[in-house]
């Protein structure tokens, strides 16, 4: 009997959250002599440092130290994949705000004043902001990669219809509520403890050690919880941690870095903007016979995780569709923005948007319901189930999900109703779309697919668990708590997840790729099983009875409901705590370390072939939208969502991931717009101007359901990862807008970029309805720079 798994057990920090007692970095009381640390960044997006003068700043009362790259005892050059990023700029500045000078002071007031007195002279170079500009200058990060199957040229030649264009999607700020933060505590001799809001304590440990030229064994890196992360604290938490560490190193005082929201938004990387050229061949029925996509991402100034993100884009270019002839190319462009980074979906959303856009366009062109095009092309169960990279799509039930959701959401009827509505004279317009996802789970870099855990049982039978997984709100701790509780058959309240610390778990992977529970949960399970072996041995001896003719039988021992017993003598029970005490006295180990590696994953990025994923999380979503024709205002009328997330470990938490991910995705697709000044300064750098979804933006009707999948028999307790996938179901909203526009576009295929803000929507409506041929075929780019942009958009549909 499973006790905890499958139940809606509250988040393990919920009590702390609702009372405000849960501590985040900046809530930790200031220690004696603790300093606050801030930075001064590059005043321009691209240039050479001529001079740095902080003499006046030093005079401010309360300033304790001011540092540049010259004060770094160890390395200054970092990078998770390609080592190309200076922590503190040395000569070249490659993005606006790139840290140059670090200031440590007794209080924030002093820091504020000192910052204004730091004078950095720069010889400005011409910056590059857009993908187009970067391509012209041949500025790339890493190499162009390719995944290919069949002969796409042939497919184009032979095809009845070919459609070709460029698609643009803009970036997205993570907008985690807790901005980047870290505190460094210097210890004896070289020791340093760093507490930071990071998804990747191991990386923090490593960069701090390299920065200070000390051993990794001299650094302890800890993360109790994050106030949101979404990928934004996978690599980029390293910079504030290094700032704190450098100040602590020089001053021997604890040092605290807490970015303001404004600074955080201005200088941290974001979701990558993409520009994608696509060419699709299809039949008159809508069967896609060939596809070529050339992804270009705007990587910002340094490589960060961009190449891995591009890889995931390429691995999701076909989303849920079988495309026989396909060629996918991926290039990361180097520009003068802060290095763009991981963000929920990790390149998946950008590439899925492209194929969903193509499907909408095919349907508009063929005057068919896009649903029919989607189901026609969907991966099959017995055939048409091999991905372009050669992995077989196994044990998924996508066709069933399509079918069931279209029934429960009344899709066909509502599609007809939307059509009818749009034929009436009205100042309003409606659209509807249903989009699927098939999201691969595992890191595409093989070695990251490992996890370790430490489980300690105390003499009263309570348990502490530590893993390399970090808690950012996603409920990882709660799920592991449930897994461990069930391993020992005890109440989940007797299991506690401890802060993630490199002291307990070494060489851990970032908590990312939705794989947190899979890797750490299974590692914890492994540790539990080691302890269990000893406990069960002991119990079997304890319950063995010569009188009753029962030999010790470990296979008959059960740990359930807080008790241990031999199933042959179910009435003779021992409390779990009693068993533990006995084990202690018998000198049986009550602690163990577990380890897990994901089996069977391997991907060769040179050949573009392999099995990068352990399994896929899938689902579908229907969205219906209402648009004001005269203002472009968008309202989401209804959403119906259905996902296969396997056997949920905690339905309450998983539902939260689904709803939250979906709404976050809707933000990216609709209102969240990064707008820059032509010098590269982000203008929408706070919630006043950067509009994430508000409670009032929730759809009026919102149905979220999961579907049983008996074929999924692998992974921890047959669950599936759920963190990222729902994000991409939001594409249904964007597709519904595109669908709505098709009703005003006469016989053209309406274009629509991401985000579909009301401005973008009105621009399109005006473009397609105004009789006078205005110059509304205006500038297109993946980013919004306030100065006007060149290059015009072309729409070509070439029936052959």
């Amino acid at each position, binding site marked *: 009997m499973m006790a905890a798994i499958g139940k809606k057990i509250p988040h393990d920090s919920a009590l702390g959250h609702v009372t405000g007692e849960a501590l985040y970095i900046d809530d930790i009381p200031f220690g004696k002599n603790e300093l606050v640390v801030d930075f001064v960044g590059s005043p321009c997006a691209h240039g050479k440092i001529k001079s740095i003068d902080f003499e006046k700043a030093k005079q401010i009362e309360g300033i304790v130290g001011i540092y540049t790259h010259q004060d770094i005892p160890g390395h200054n050059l970092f990078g998770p994949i390609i080592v190309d990023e200076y922590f503190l700029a040395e000569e070249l500045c490659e993005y606006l705000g790139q840290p140059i000078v670090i200031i440590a002071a007794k209080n924030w007031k002093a820091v504020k004043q000192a910052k204004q007195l730091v004078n950095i002279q720069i010889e400005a170079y011409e910056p590059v902001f857009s993908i187009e500009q970067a391509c012209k200058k041949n500025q790339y990060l890493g190499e162009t990669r390719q995944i290919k199957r069949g002969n796409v040229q042939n497919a184009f030649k032979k095809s009845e219809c070919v459609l070709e264009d460029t698609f643009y999607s803009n970036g997205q700020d993570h907008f985690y509520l807790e901005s980047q933060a870290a505190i460094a505590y210097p210890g004896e001799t070289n020791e340093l403890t760093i507490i930071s809001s990071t998804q990747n304590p191991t990386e923090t440990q490593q960069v701090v050690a390299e920065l200070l030229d000390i051993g990794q064994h001299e650094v302890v890196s800890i993360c109790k919880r994050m106030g949101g992360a979404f990928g934004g604290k996978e690599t980029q938490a390293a910079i504030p941690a290094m700032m704190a560490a450098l100040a602590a190193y020089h001053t021997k005082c604890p040092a605290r870095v807490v970015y303001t929201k404004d600074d955080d938004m201005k200088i941290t990387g974001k979701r990558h903007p993409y520009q994608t050229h696509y060419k699709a061949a299809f039949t008159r029925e809508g069967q896609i016979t060939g596809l070529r996509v050339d992804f270009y991402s705007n990587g910002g100034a340094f490589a960060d995780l961009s190449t891995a993100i591009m890889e995931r884009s390429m691995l999701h270019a076909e989303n849920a569709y079988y495309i026989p002839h396909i060629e996918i190319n991926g290039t990361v462009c180097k520009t003068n923005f802060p290095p763009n980074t991981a963000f929920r979906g990790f390149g998946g959303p950008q590439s899925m948007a492209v194929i969903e856009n193509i499907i909408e366009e095919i349907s508009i062109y063929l005057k068919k319901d896009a649903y029919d095009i989607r189901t026609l092309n969907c991966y099959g169960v017995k055939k048409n189930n091999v991905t372009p990279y050669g992995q077989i799509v196994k044990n998924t039930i996508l066709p069933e999900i399509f079918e069931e959701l279209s029934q429960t959401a009344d899709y066909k009827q509502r599609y007809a109703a939307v059509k009818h509505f749009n034929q009436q004279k009205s100042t309003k317009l409606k659209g509807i779309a249903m989009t699927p996802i098939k999201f691969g789970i595992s890191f595409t870099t093989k070695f990251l697919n490992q996890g370790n855990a430490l489980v300690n049982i105390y003499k009263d039978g309570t348990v502490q668990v530590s893993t390399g997984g970090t808690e950012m709100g996603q409920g990882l701790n709660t799920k592991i708590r449930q897994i461990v509780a069930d391993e020992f058959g005890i109440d989940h309240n007797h299991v506690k997840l401890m802060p993630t610390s490199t002291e307990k778990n070494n060489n851990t992977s970032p908590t990312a790729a939705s794989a947190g529970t899979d890797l750490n949960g299974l590692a914890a399970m492994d540790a539990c099983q080691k302890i269990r072996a000893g406990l069960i041995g002991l119990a079997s001896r304890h319950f063995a009875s010569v009188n009753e003719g029962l030999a010790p039988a470990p296979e008959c021992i059960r740990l359930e409901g807080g008790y241990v017993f031999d199933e042959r003598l179910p009435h003779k029970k021992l409390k779990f705590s009693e068993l533990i005490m006995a084990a202690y006295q018998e000198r049986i180990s009550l602690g163990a370390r577990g380890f897990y590696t994901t089996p069977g994953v391997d991907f060769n990025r040179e050949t573009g072939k392999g099995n990068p994923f352990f399994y896929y999380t899938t689902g579908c979503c229907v969205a219906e939208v209402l648009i004001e024709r005269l203002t472009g205002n968008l309202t989401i009328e209804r959403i119906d969502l259905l996902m296969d997330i396997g056997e949920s470990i905690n339905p309450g938490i998983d539902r939260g991931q689904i709803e939250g991910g979906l709404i976050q995705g809707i933000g990216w697709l609709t209102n969240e717009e990064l707008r820059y000044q032509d010098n590269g300064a982000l203008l929408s750098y706070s919630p*006043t101007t950067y509009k994430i979804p508000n409670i009032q933006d929730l759809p009026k009707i919102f149905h979220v359901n999961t579907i049983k999948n008996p074929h999924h028999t692998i992974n921890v307790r047959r669950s599936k990862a759920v963190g990222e996938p729902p994000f991409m179901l939001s594409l249904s909203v964007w597709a519904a807008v595109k669908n709505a526009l098709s009703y005003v576009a006469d016989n053209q295929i309406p274009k629509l970029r991401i985000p579909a803000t009301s401005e973008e929507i009105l621009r399109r409506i005006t473009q397609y309805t105004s009789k006078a041929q205005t110059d509304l075929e205006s500038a297109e780019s993946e980013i919004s720079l306030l100065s006007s942009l060149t290059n015009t958009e072309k729409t070509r549909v070439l029936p052959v």
Partner: protein
Amino acid sequence: MRDYILLYINGKRYQVSGEQIFQPFSDFLRHEQGLTGTKVVCAEGDCGACTALLGTVKNHELIYEIFNTCIYYVYQLDCQHVVTIEGLKANGHLHAVQQSMIDHFSSQCGYCTPGFVVAAAGMFEKKNVLSEQDVRYGLTGNLCRCTGYQPIIQAVLAVAPDTVPSIAECFPSSAMLQDFEQHTTDSIAAHYEETITGKSVIKKFFNPATLQEILDCKKQYPAAAFVAGGTDISVQMNKGKVHPDTIISLSNLPNLDFIKRQEEYVRIGPKVCWAELEHFCKNTFPEWHKTLTVFGSPQIRNVGTIAGNIANASPVGDSLPFLFVMNAEVELSSVHGKRWVDINDFYHGYKNTEMTKEELITEIRLAPLNAVQKMKLYKVSKRKDLDIAIFTAGILLEEMDGVIQNIRIAYGGVGPVVLRLLETEAFLKKKQFCLETFREAGKLARGEITPISDVRASAEYRLQLSENILLQFYYDVCEEQPC
């Protein structure tokens, strides 16, 4: 005369003076008091993470409403009681909202959660049953990046209003009220000396208790900044855009928060906050009421004032197109006396008004609509709620037998100040009330404005809106009374 601020936090009395009063209340809570349950994310009123309950004396009672502590300075808090997230867990018992939020998975990362809990708790002060609409409306001022809000709504809906003790039950008011009543008629003058990059500055704060006193004070310190709700000026201070050395608060000034109908006028005191106006307008100006429901957030509406909106002189101030087409008048007072100014003559240029450095807005008055007038207001913003407008419009029409007798059109967000479209108005006069007329007018309107591209939208979008909104107006009027 006092030199300190008297306030209560979670029932505990504080006298705060000197430098400490010149900081955002959230900093005071977090840094000075160690009450870190209140979070700060944006420091500009746009996320609600810092929400607390503000108890102010109204009719000898403490009335609690939510506010943003990040843009409320300690000096604004005289004779008020603040309840923070720490205060809600009374005597070790969880508040019903807290328990319900745990049960409904309403927190993920938890950073927004204290703000939501406080905002939700505030909704139960009125003890009425809440609809989903009410809950969404009440929580408009709080952002959550994790949950997608649904579980928060469910948690609040699951709380039975009659089981929630009121704040007054948790924190008995009588002693506080008595204390406040003894002190609220005091004037306050406080100051401290600050060294900013080597230069010494005396920061001064005044909280006058009479109109005469405040006018004298402003004459003596013409560069001083008035603070009413602070929802404009505190944001600018937090973001380092203004650094007033002298601050004059209106908070203890009596008799300036009236709203009444008198003779041919509706008369509004400058200190009337948006929440009160919203309530008042429901019947008197239903169209204005609609736009007030998307004005900022509950936290902002509870403290932000109409005079602050007018004096702040933003080209996208939400109230202005309405006041323009209504020909509202503003009363300006100074030691030299009073004068009335038509709002249409109030703005001279970007943030440049008719008001002199010695004047205070003491009243706003306007005549209600008459039977033949039809008025519509529009606000277009990137996000419908809690967003500053990209474009605003007010249009007032007098029509007879299908002919436009008179029309007033005011647009915001299309220039440095809110504009009346005089040419378009003149064109429309005596024209047929029909679609074609408004189509042509739309084209004219485009020519009358020179909007810019900024962070919120492009000039092109604003131009298109200024054309389209006239069509929208036509359709909206037709919808009410088929034409």
